[in-house]
């Protein structure tokens, strides 16, 4: 029978069928392997259920570990919008207000709004933090809600032109530095006749957009759209509109010209005081979030008095900024020796050198200014007023304030805190808030010159903001300054923090330039010496201190502080003859190079580095060596703790991180559980069923949660899902950019703002949040500047730590990112970032230090780039500095993990990372740790420590809100995985059967042909 069916005629049919299905089976197997290898990422992306919890323990509202003040998503959003607007009201900076052009009084609010951006202003940048789909409220409706009458015909024209695509800004960053930006402003000639309607004021919205993955154009934009191809200059069309507005103002058609600078990437400010443009008032509003435009309208109307202060130096022209000589993309000379070490998204043959050292932003402009005034030799030519439009910390008000009764006192015998007391009086006519800033000047000594320690003329060390002061009202502010801020990092001498011998000045000031003028005045300098304005010597106190290299040589944890970044300093890295001359105030003239000309042309003044065999070797991913260290215990049944047991002991006291109970719980974990926990981390921490650890949701959001409240329902233990809230499909509020948050200079408000965001997280089921972005505004061209706070490390740290306290009070642990030196987007994946240790510790690391030490931030996210030649995840500082020195309690996750398929083709290494303080990949790497099951005791212990940190962090979070010791976690295989296996099985069976059929047919045909020559 079988032989009849499988005859010679059907042999070829079976052969074809077998052939086709073997090929299909192979393809299905390969595809299935790829899919299942990345299943955590796929599950995360599509919010697919992988586990659920069953709770037999009793939970009521009172037993919740973290509670919300609100009863519904609607209430949470109303609260979030309230704080969004509060932040914008207090964060917008009044740059200019000639003749009290602002506010626009009632009865004088008939306005024409200009620029194509008015109908599509920038609410947030782009990228992982800008993906919130909470739609920004329209500018016109925002203005009208505050009593403005908006030129409707002009508005409609802009609306149509923008929606039809005739004009309109486009802006998105694309990975690899290939950003796509355009301004596409409508020229004056294209505008309708309504442009010349009579109006009390013309409001010009000047918008620029930045985002993740690429920096904005320095000189490579479309020159017909951007002056000199530079995204941060006024475009030809913008100039055209502004010049025509000036004509309208001159002929009385419009009353005044107001500019709203709607960008964190600062547009060159030289036009603001150029009489040709006739700008009367200017407000920096940053990226305002979804409802912040209402607050801008409040400020324009005078319902709110602006009290924001600049978090960056505003340059008249960016080419004056020496950072631009070493920003962006430079390739090693002789880079071909490195090529074989690089994978497709490893830009290790690119580098950036922070040649400016500590002289970043105001620390450059104010220091060089002081040295000009004091006639320090080799200062060179430097015209402060030509370079700086508005200094760091600057901001005007609709009222005026005076300082009096300034008392600055040294620490008492039993502490190390300097105290600055200032009485602020509102001397104007309307209520307002004032920011008092405290700046420190350290002595720049012969020791410093010898050991290459640099000192800025002023450094921000503290600030405070008054509450609302009525006209004539006074308030005393007390600002504490920690003595450790007096220390400087001496990388080339003591190798730790030192106090120099000499005179230290503390001053209360309105901004950085005011501060340096105060100190100059205290030193006896006057306007006749070249000062831009007189200082107030009475606002200054000085302290004579002795040299001390011990006092600040230990961290808050008692850890000895020593050089940890020598391999990031070209001059200390021993693998090359390359040398860098950092900018030094000892010789401004020869050490300061500008990177651009006035027309944005590259001067090629960047530091040139040559690749060497050592660098080529060192950029390779390290592979841990095997060792004889005995492995930890796995799968112990001696105890049966659940994660919920680890929160508190029988007396209700918290169980500390170093409790022996944790060791027992860790002993319970099997190798496979440990492996799974540490291999899957893309926007989550993995469930561990045996200890009832739920899967968590840890998602993007430097500007608030980016997913709908009810996203990922099965793993979402947020209140929106728990209460089946009718608005759970809506998106949380898009909060204002962090630069605007920092510009409030109001830590108390920011902490409340953090609580509002914490409530959002609690309702959205966010157990962890990938934010805040605390990298530094090293350049205005940084694509991701909107996620970051400031050019100043102390301000970034003090504000972010307040925000951290707020959000973590609701049980959502924060991942501070991107640790470290990820201050540009160009070639961020693997670029070698070189900087000296003084600048790293005093500027770039400072926000992380303050957020962790003061704010209690649980976690950090490491960066894509290399620190020197080593990827941040295994450079070592995550362990030695972030954890050991700063005492971070939680864990370090990588930036998006590039190590698919076993991780070979990437510079990131999970095992080497584990050995150096990196705990979890933001991605899947199921195979990379498998081979460490035997013979790598050190890696195994590092895995245990990483698991400890993750479990501890989760145990303290709102993930445990509804978890009791009776809870069980049930892991489930997603339906798509079952489908993949089923498809593989079906194709395998068909391929197998057809193959057998073919061979049987072949055998039968042989039998029939027995005796015949096969070739006959």
């Amino acid at each position, binding site marked *: 029978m079988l032989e009849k069916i499988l005859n010679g005629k059907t042999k070829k049919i079976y052969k074809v069928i077998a052939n086709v299905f*073997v090929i299909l089976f192979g393809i299905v197997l390969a595809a299935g392997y790829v899919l299942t290898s990345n299943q955590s990422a796929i599950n995360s992306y599509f919010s697919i259920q992988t586990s659920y919890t069953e709770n037999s323990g009793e939970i009521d509202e009172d037993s919740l570990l973290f509670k919300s003040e609100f009863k519904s998503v609607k209430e949470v959003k109303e609260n979030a919008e309230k704080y969004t607007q509060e932040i914008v009201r207090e964060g917008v900076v009044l740059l200019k207000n000639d003749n009290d052009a602002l506010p626009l009084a009632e009865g004088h609010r008939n306005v024409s709004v200009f620029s194509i951006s008015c109908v599509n202003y920038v609410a947030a940048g782009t990228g992982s933090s800008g993906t919130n789909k909470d739609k920004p409220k329209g500018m016109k409706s925002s203005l009208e809600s505050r009593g403005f009458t908006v030129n409707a015909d002009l508005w409609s024209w802009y609306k149509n032109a923008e929606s039809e695509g005739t004009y309109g800004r486009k802006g998105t960053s694309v990975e690899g530095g290939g950003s796509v930006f355009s301004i596409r402003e409508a020229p004056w000639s294209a505008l309708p006749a309504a442009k010349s309607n009579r109006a009390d004021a013309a409001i010009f919205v000047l918008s620029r957009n930045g985002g993740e993955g690429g920096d904005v154009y320095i000189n490579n934009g479309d020159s017909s759209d951007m002056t000199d191809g530079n995204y941060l200059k006024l475009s030809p069309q913008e100039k055209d509109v502004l010049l025509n507005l000036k004509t309208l103002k001159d002929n009385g058609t419009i009353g005044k010209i107001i500019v709203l600078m709607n960008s964190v990437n600062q547009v060159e400010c030289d036009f603001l005081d150029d009489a040709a443009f006739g700008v009367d008032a200017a407000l920096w509003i940053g990226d305002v979030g979804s409802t912040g435009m209402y607050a801008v309208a409040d400020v324009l109307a005078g319902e709110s008095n602006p009290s924001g202060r600049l978090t960056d130096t505003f340059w008249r022209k960016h080419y004056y900024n020496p950072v631009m000589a070493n920003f962006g993309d430079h390739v090693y000379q002789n880079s071909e020796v490195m090529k074989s*070490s690089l*994978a497709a998204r490893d830009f290790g043959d690119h580098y950036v050198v922070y040649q400016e050292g500590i002289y970043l932003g105001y620390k450059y402009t104010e220091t060089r200014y002081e040295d000009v005034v004091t006639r320090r030799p080799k200062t060179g030519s430097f015209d402060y007023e030509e370079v700086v439009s508005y200094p760091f910390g600057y901001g005007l008000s609709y009222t005026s304030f005076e300082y009096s009764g300034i008392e600055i006192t040294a620490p008492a015998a039993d502490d190390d805190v300097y105290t600055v007391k200032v009485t602020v009086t509102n001397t104007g006519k309307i209520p307002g808030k004032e920011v008092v800033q405290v700046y420190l000047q350290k002595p720049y000594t012969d020791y410093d010159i010898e050991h290459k320690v640099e000192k800025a003329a002023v450094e921000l060390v503290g600030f405070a903001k008054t509450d609302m002061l009525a006209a004539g009202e006074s308030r005393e502010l007390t600002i504490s300054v920690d003595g450790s801020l007096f220390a400087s990092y001496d990388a080339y001498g003591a190798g730790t923090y030192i106090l120099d011998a000499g005179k230290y000045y503390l001053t209360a000031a309105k901004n950085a330039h005011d501060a340096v003028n105060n100190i100059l005045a205290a030193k006896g300098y006057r306007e006749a010496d070249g000062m831009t304005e007189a200082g107030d010597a009475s606002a200054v106190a000085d302290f004579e201190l002795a040299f001390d290299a011990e006092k600040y040589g230990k961290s808050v944890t008692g850890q000895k502080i020593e050089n940890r970044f020598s391999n990031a300093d070209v001059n200390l890295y021993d693998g090359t003859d390359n040398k860098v001359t950092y900018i030094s105030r000892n010789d401004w003239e020869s050490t300061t190079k500008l990177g651009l000309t006035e027309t944005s042309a590259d001067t090629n003044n960047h530091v040139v580095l040559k690749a060497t065999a050592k660098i080529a070797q060192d950029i390779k991913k390290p592979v841990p060596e095997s060792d004889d260290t005995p492995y930890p215990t796995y799968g112990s049944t001696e105890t049966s703790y659940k994660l919920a047991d680890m929160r508190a002991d029988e007396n209700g006291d918290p169980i500390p991180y170093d409790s022996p109970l944790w060791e027992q719980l860790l002993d319970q974990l099997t190798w496979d559980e440990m492996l799974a926990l540490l291999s899957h981390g893309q926007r989550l921490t993995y469930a561990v069923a045996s200890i009832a650890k739920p899967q968590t949701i840890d998602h993007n959001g430097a500007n608030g949660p980016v997913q709908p409240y009810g996203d990922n329902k099965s793993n979402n233990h947020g209140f929106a899902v728990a209460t089946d809230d009718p608005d759970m499909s809506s998106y949380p509020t898009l909060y204002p950019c962090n630069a605007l948050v920092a510009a409030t200079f109001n830590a108390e408000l920011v902490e409340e703002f953090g609580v509002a965001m914490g409530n959002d997280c609690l309702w959205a089921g966010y157990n962890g949040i990938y934010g805040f972005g605390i990298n530094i505004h090293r350049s205005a061209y940084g694509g991701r500047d909107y996620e970051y706070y400031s050019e100043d490390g102390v301000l970034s740290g003090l504000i972010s730590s307040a925000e951290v306290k707020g959000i973590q009070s609701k049980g959502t642990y924060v991942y501070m990112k991107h640790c470290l030196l990820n201050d540009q987007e160009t070639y961020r994946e693997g670029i070698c970032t070189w900087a000296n240790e003084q600048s790293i510790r005093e500027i770039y690391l400072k926000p992380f230090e303050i957020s962790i030490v003061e704010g209690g931030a649980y976690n950090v996210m490491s960066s894509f780039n290399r620190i020197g030649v080593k990827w941040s995840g295994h450079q070592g500082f995550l362990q030695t500095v972030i954890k050991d020195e700063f005492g971070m309690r939680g864990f370090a996750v990588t930036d998006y993990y590039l190590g698919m*398929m076993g991780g070979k*083709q990437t510079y990131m290494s999970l095992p080497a990372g584990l050995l150096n303080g990196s705990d979890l990949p933001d991605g899947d790497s199921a195979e990379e740790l498998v081979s460490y099951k035997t013979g790598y005791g050190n890696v195994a212990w590092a895995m245990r420590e990483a698991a400890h940190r993750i479990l501890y962090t989760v145990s303290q979070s709102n993930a445990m809100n509804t978890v009791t010791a009776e809870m069980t976690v049930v892991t489930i295989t997603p339906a798509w995985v079952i489908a993949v296996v089923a498809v593989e099985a079906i194709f395998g069976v068909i391929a197998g059967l057809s193959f057998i059929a073919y061979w049987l047919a072949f055998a039968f045909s042989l039998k029939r042909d027995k005796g015949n*020559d*096969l*070739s*006959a």
Partner: protein
Amino acid sequence: MEKIKKYFQQRGAGFYLTASAALLSIIVAIVYIVGYTGSVYFYWFVFLMPLFAAAAFVAMAPFRFLGHLSAFVTGIIDFIMLLLFIVYFIPYLTGIFYSGITMQAIASLDFAFVFTLFGTITAIVLANIGMYLSHARKEKA
């Protein structure tokens, strides 16, 4: 010499197609090792499996029965290699096409990658066709 000549004269189209597949497999292995040796994209299996495919053909072709199977064996080894090659080069491809599939990205693909990919596919197709064709000419009566 005459025997060898006769041997080749008696081979059919299937033999020559499979031989071409085997030869192409060897070239693929050489191009791959030249292009990727010492780099993070070097995998021994990508180098060795085409050589195994060619060796299998050389070892099986002289025999009457096995000669018929040589196309299948050569093709299947190349096919397995192709699947593994693609699986292991997915990170490379995601890196190249991270910003979208553009002409610029396509142009930046390594020659060794392109040759290995299309050379192997061609070898599989040749071997596959070889499976359906005679490997030895019928002797005239």
